[in-house]
């Protein structure tokens, strides 16, 4: 069980890192307003925070510090989304990843780590697997960066994107949306099944622990 949790934590950290890298390569909007300099400053500041804290996640071996760095990275990427007028994406990034997932990761770390074991133990084959993932990701990102023709049209900041996204989710993309919810439901039930021990009720167990 602890093994699985460690994998979940690692997968979360890695995918968030990938998301960070992905988000950070968004181009600066060609702003024609008078606050171009301010936007540029904000962009570079937030990109720097995202990249540096991503790097810190790699360097630090302390999981709770990793979580805090991840929070900084996610916040900075959310800031980039806000800068690009993708308000909904930024808010969801903050609410789902920064507010929800991070707490779950921390919760997992706190419940599973024993004194002295809060450092990640990486075995040989895990290093190889991680290396393969890293190299693939790096090559893929470089290819995206090099092969894309960056559009320089003005960012079309629609006044409200929430309604448009909602409508699209419930009309054109209804089936993927429902499939995703079914997947989440399956995961929830699976998690509940996995942690359940026979002949024990959950409430008493919680009372013992806290």
């Amino acid at each position, binding site marked *: 069980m602890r093994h699985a949790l460690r994998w979940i934590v690692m997968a979360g950290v890695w995918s968030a890192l990938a998301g960070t890298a992905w988000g950070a390569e968004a181009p600066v909007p060609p702003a024609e307003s008078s606050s171009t300099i301010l936007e540029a400053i904000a962009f570079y500041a937030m990109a720097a925070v995202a990249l540096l804290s991503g790097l810190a996640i790699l360097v630090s071996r302390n999981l*709770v510090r990793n979580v805090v760095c991840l*929070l900084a990275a996610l916040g900075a990427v959310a800031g980039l989304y806000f800068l690009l007028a993708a308000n909904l994406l*930024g*808010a969801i990034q903050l*609410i789902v990843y*920064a*507010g929800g997932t991070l707490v779950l990761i*921390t919760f997992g770390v706190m419940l599973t780590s024993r004194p002295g074991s809060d450092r990640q133990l990486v075995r040989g084959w895990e290093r190889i697997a991680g290396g393969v993932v890293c190299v693939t990701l790096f090559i893929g990102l470089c290819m995206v960066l090099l092969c894309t023709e960056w559009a320089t049209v003005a960012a079309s900041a629609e006044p409200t994107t929430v309604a448009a996204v909602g409508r699209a989710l419930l009309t054109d993309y209804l089936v993927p949306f429902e499939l995703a919810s079914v997947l989440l439901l399956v995961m929830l039930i699976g998690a509940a099944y996995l942690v359940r021990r026979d002949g024990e009720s959950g409430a008493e167990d*919680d009372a013992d622990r806290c």
Partner: protein
Amino acid sequence: MAESHTRSAYGTARQAGGGRRSSRRPAALIFFGAVVAVVLFVWALAAAFEYVDGLVVADSHRVAETGEIVRTRFGGPLTTAEIVDYLPERLRFRPVSWLFWPLQFSLVRDAIAVTGLVGFVSVFTMYAIWWERKVAAHIQSRLGPMRVGGWHGWAQSLADKIKLLTKEDLVPAGADRILYRLAPYMAFTPVLLAFVALPFGTYWVLRNLDVALLFVLAMLGIEVIAVIVAGWASNNKWSLYGGMREASQMVAYESPMGLALLVPIMLAGTLNLAAIGDQQQAGFHMWVVFRNPFAAVAFVLYFVAALASCKRAPFDLPEAESELVAGFMTEYSGFRWGVFFFAEYTSMFVVSGLATTLFLGAWYSPLPAGWGEALAGGGVVARAAHGLLFSGPLWFIAKCVALVYVQIWLRWTLPRVRIDQVLYLFVQVLLPLGMVVLLGNTLWVFLVPEDGIVAVVANTLLCTAGVIVAAAFLGVAVVARARRYRLVGSLAVDHLPGA
């Protein structure tokens, strides 16, 4: 015997206090005078903003008509000479234009607004702490802080803050120094950021985000991480227990809270808090809480979850003074400890602000705003009257403060529940209730026409019930005040200074 002793003490205290009474009155006057002055200053500043807006728009029209100069945006920034041209005859002086000139730049405006917000939050927090101590004391038949400042100890929090600033900033051995020092700011920053999207009035909002509600919720969620990090970094078992409790509690209360908040979103059809507030301007019967029975239940549901989100009793498990010393902030001292309290009281205001905006008519008074349209466009006095009677930030703040009072009141009334009871309550009671409320509201929206007889009957019933409950509450309060001697015996006599 004890009675007569109290009597004599009462007599002497009265005589001794008689001389001080005259010195107490000015303190109270200064206190309320300062509040009024701040309100007037903010109104004047807002009027100046509006005036400069008018100038900029007028100038852009003039530029568009005459085609004098081609400028990039709004005809470019106005020069002081142009502002002098626009000023009315009596005010046509250079210094006056220097006053208005900076106000046309959004950066300056943001700086002023942010300064104002930080000031408001600081003062509110200070007085919320003082108020909490006074309410707690009066609930327990005490008087609370009475000395500092004279009038009911009004400067107590100020003195406490100075004390906290001068205390030593300790870091326990074996703590994670960086995270330990960082955690208080991680708690306070998100809560302050929530004010970016929280509207105090139709135009009194720093950024009118279309995802304002999600943004505020996200900020309230991030605050939790700070508590967990503080608990972990302190290298203290009590702190760690506090942090873990906060994490598990957060997992439990977020879902019912989200479900409850879906009800006003569904009724309003938007996530924009300013727009949701504006939909409730037609009098108190249009407040979301009175729109249908499910919305009323959703309000209660949200408020219970909000109590847990602010770590307030009966859900103050992360702190739990009688079990965990002080929970996640056991090891903190001085300024950092104070910052945690800042965060807690500010987040109380933020969740009350959300409840006010989403359920309780936002910044509108119970009177229909339509009645005051004539006043809104009038002179200074008429507009001030409009602000006091119909809508404005003062109404918003008053409603928020009332809800903060309810939170304080509940804290000193209800006993703390156990952590497993919290989890049980939120996951197995309130979560299903939230789903029922959501489904019921959906059916209500689709099946009951907005102006049908059912809606009218339900609205009338709910409003009547609300008015009766409010009147009964007021009546009980009056009767209790009249009979307070009989209720709590000799403890509640006003022989102590300032009573």
